[in-house]
């Protein structure tokens, strides 16, 4: 049931309430937030997390609350739950009501009872959010009241074998199952509202799409409302009835999902949409980014918080804090400019990447390339390293011995047999879910991990350099940025002054000022840290740059900037790039070619654009359909990814494959990527490859 009505929408823009006196719940809402402001104290500093937000949640709707880190979206969720830390309450103003009860200033017991009777919640990490030492059944019973009800709920969220699962501990379940257990607890007792804070962020893309589908069907069946807090506009777009966009503790825009997506009226929402990668983002040239970073929550600017990053900002914007006002009934935007002016604005070229106006070096896979021409084919797995190979990986296998409970040890087959040839200057994106072995492959290429079998041949004399997902953790906390980069220059026979010069040059190359050399990693933002990691990797230009999900921990607007930077460094320094990611839309943009991995094997390898537009392997097709896109109903694969502890016989994908038959399960079958007859640049490990 999609709830689209008009008329009450203006309620969301209710004027600031000077007092906190209490009115009964308005009909037609399950929760109301009025002019909420929350300030935390951290030492001597005040953190203005939420600064005057008004919002209504209506019965039976999914409201997608979208924002980057620091936008205040999670704090808003915690205030609805009445779970703000006690010491922040004195710095909290406004009104938050759920089922007509005051969730800000009500007594602790009142708020607790509202949580028990009217609210449910799902949090990001289902491993830490479930009690590790309590059986799943008991945890669900706490919310459900009885064993029968708990079993019924577990069935309702799609857990097969619910009775048996009741006696499992959380660590015995997969991530997707754990999140289903969380959802079962959240909808126990038919709450009127469920707060879901990044419920799919820690999950693989296929599991994510299963969970989103489940949320939608639960809302339609039970009729409860969901507040879906997410950083990913695509996730919200897929299931939400309405979307509210938050920025720096303020509401930027809200309205029905289609309206916000099609005719956004706030420059931030537009910027967010433009910098978000999709499967149709342009691959040539630079990605559009938002310049600058989110303003400090300690000293927010007096005017519009987005003004420092806004291309349309006027003098007014630096002075006036705009409140959300209706563009049309039901669609609010907190911008002083008319919506037409905002929408007419074309995205500006990224200021930091001006030099990158030229075309992407990956010209060989331009759509007009002739698929039938064998000359243009990229070898899938060469029998010998090509003259221009930067890394040549042959028959790599890697198995780990892991503890498998009860004192037994099992073999975890991380890499089952990998052949890959990365040409000099080429960029290959490796895509896969967790457990596919993609990071292990990268570590074997880097020489950080030994292969049990096979060989890695490097084209050049320099060792490959690596950039990791968590840039904060990969920079030694007590060393200055300068010292970290300088470390790589030692032993090169350079004088101190020369080394210093090189450090500054490396920082400049990644778009950081020379002063950053004196900073330590904790003083930098996430985007800056990733740039420092890149500067460290490229201060002596390597032949090959290995990137392990370098942007997946970054906000959308920053991730695009880092991707642009990697592309530019690659062209300027003539490096090859091997880029591991779980996100096909990222892979499509950074890779000349894409290698799709499943359970330690490459199942499909080919030119990026065409792998995405014309997938040949059923697994690639499933992955593509799971990428959250507005309105698109995902093709949901049933089941969980198979475990690398016990890979299925034959084709490892056959238990989940819609095309599989007996031949696919044959234990004698050893599938390796082979070139398609219809497209020589494509190698697919499947008995029935199909080009659509």
């Amino acid at each position, binding site marked *: 049931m999609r709830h689209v009505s008009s008329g009450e929408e203006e309620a969301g823009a209710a004027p600031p309430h000077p007092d906190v006196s209490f009115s009964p719940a308005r009909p037609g809402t399950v929760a109301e937030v009025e002019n909420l402001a929350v300030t935390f104290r951290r030492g001597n500093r005040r953190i203005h997390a939420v600064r005057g937000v008004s919002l209504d949640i209506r019965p039976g709707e999914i409201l997608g609350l979208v924002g980057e880190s620091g936008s205040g979206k999670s704090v808003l969720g915690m205030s609805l739950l009445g779970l703000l830390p006690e010491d922040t309450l004195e710095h909290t103003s406004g009104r938050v009501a759920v089922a007509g009860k005051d969730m800000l200033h009500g007594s602790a017991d009142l708020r607790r009872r509202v949580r028990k009777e009217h609210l449910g919640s799902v949090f990001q990490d289902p491993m830490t*959010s479930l009690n590790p030492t309590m059986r799943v059944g008991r945890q669900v019973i706490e919310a459900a009241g009885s064993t029968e009800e708990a079993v019924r709920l577990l069935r309702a969220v799609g857990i097969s074998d619910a009775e048996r699962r009741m006696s499992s501990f959380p660590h015995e379940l997969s991530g997707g199952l754990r999140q289903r257990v969380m959802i079962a607890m959240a909808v126990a007792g038919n709450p009127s509202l469920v707060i879901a804070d990044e419920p799919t962020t820690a999950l693989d893309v296929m599991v994510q799409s299963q969970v989103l589908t489940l949320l939608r069907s639960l809302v339609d069946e039970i009729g409860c409302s969901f507040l879906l807090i997410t950083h990913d506009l695509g996730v919200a777009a897929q299931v939400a009835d309405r979307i509210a966009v938050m920025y720096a503790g303020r509401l930027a825009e809200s309205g029905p999902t289609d309206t916000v997506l099609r005719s956004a009226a706030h420059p931030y929402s537009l910027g967010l949409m433009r910098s978000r990668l999709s499967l149709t983002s342009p691959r040539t040239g630079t990605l559009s980014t938002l310049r600058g970073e989110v303003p400090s929550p300690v000293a927010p600017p007096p005017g519009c918080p987005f003004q420092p990053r806004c291309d349309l900002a006027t003098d007014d914007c630096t002075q006036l804090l705009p409140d959300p006002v209706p563009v049309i009934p039901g669609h609010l935007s907190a911008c002083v400019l008319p919506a037409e002016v905002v929408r007419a604005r074309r995205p500006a070229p990224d200021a930091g990447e001006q030099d990158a106006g030229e075309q992407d070096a990956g010209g060989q896979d331009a759509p007009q390339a002739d698929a039938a021409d064998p000359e243009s084919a990229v070898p899938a797995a060469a029998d010998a390293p090509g003259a221009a190979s930067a890394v040549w990986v042959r028959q790599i296998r890697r198995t780990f011995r892991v503890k498998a409970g009860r*004192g037994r040890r099992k073999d975890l087959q991380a890499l089952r047999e990998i052949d890959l040839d990365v040409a000099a200057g080429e960029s290959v994106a490796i895509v896969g879910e967790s457990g596919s072995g993609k990071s292990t492959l990268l570590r074997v290429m880097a020489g950080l991990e030994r292969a049990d079998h096979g060989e890695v041949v490097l084209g050049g004399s320099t060792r490959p350099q690596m950039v990791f997902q968590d840039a904060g953790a990969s920079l030694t906390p007590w060393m200055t940025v300068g010292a970290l980069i300088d470390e790589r220059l030692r032993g090169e026979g350079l004088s101190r002054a020369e080394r210093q010069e090189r450090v500054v040059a490396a920082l400049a190359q990644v778009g950081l000022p020379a002063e950053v050399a004196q900073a330590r990693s904790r003083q930098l933002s996430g985007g800056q840290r990733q740039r420092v990691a890149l500067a460290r990797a490229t201060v002596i230009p390597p032949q090959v740059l290995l990137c392990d999900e370098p942007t997946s921990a970054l906000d959308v607007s920053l991730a695009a900037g880092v991707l642009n930077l990697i592309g530019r460094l690659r062209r300027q320094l003539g490096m090859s790039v091997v880029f591991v990611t779980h996100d096909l839309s990222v892979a499509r943009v950074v890779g000349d070619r894409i290698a799709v991995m499943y359970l330690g094997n490459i199942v499909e390898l080919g030119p990026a654009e065409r792998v995405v537009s014309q997938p040949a392997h059923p697994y690639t097709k499933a992955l593509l359909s799971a990428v959250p896109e507005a309105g698109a109903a995902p093709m949901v694969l049933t089941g969980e990814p198979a475990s690398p502890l016990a890979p299925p016989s034959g084709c490892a994908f056959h238990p989940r494959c819609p095309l599989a038959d007996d031949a696919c399960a044959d234990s004698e079958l050893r599938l390796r990527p082979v070139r398609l007859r219809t497209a020589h640049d494509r190698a697919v490990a499947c008995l029935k490859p199909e080009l659509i």
Partner: protein
Amino acid sequence: MLQLAGKRLGAMVVIILALTAVMFGLQKISPLDPVHAMLGQSASAQAVAAERHVLGLDQPITAQYLHYLAGLLHGDLGTSYRTRNPLSSDLGTAFPATAELTLYGLIFALILAVLLAVATTLRWPGSWLFRLILFVGASMPPFLLAIGGILLFFVNLGWLPATGRTSIHNPPTGPTGLLTIDGLLAGQFNVVTDALSHLLLPALALAIGPAVSIGRVLRSSLVSELRSDYARTARAKGQRERQVLIRHVIRNAIGPALSMTGLQAGLMFGGVLVIEQVFSWPGMGQYMTQSIPVADFPAIAAVTLVLGIGYVLINTVVDLLQAAADPRIDV
């Protein structure tokens, strides 16, 4: 779990075996001659040789060790050079006294530790005073604490006795040797209360230091577990704060405190020997202090072995409890 228990018990046997070897070795390299210690410096060479033969000291060293081990297996800890009694009978009276004192010390330490941790975590009113008293107590050496306790509760207030295990003349000599338990079994409740009043001061003096150590570890894990995601989930389900603490947090927070308890129990075995001196407690500490000056090596070895077994036993129990508390621990 069973497999873990098997492994731990196996490790226990190995450790105890190593302990016997060390004790035996020390005895052998000691310059003190036990025979002279027994017979006096002026004993004739003939008498010495005869005694050496009786004690088996003229046999090869490996044979002596195996003989010693075989005796241990039969409960024969050797013969004291000083009292000339079998050590199993000497320690038969001293060991239960020490065991009872240590047991109550450990129980008091755990109770105080949990109180300290919970009171300061939940900020109970008056918890600061409780914490202050414990911290001051813990910063004093136990014997000083014991003397202070005697001066206050015996000399000035006259509330508690200062010496011995009991003032009842014919206490039951029941199956365990622990007066509080034997009294209960025999239905003589006056024995139980009398024994408890004797236990209170020495056990508290023994308990306060370990209580603070265990309590601080427990508190810090309680604080961090109360901030954990699953505690937030429990609150979001509408659980009361007390339920969050009891049902969810305690089992997750107990691990580090259990480790600390094992360590502190080891230290308590050292502390109890001193405390027994202050309270004239007829335990192994008293026995040991009389054995050391006369180089009664079999006695010293026997006491050390008994304490060592106790220590290993407690730490094995701690390991098993930790595995029981956390299902993720697996061998």
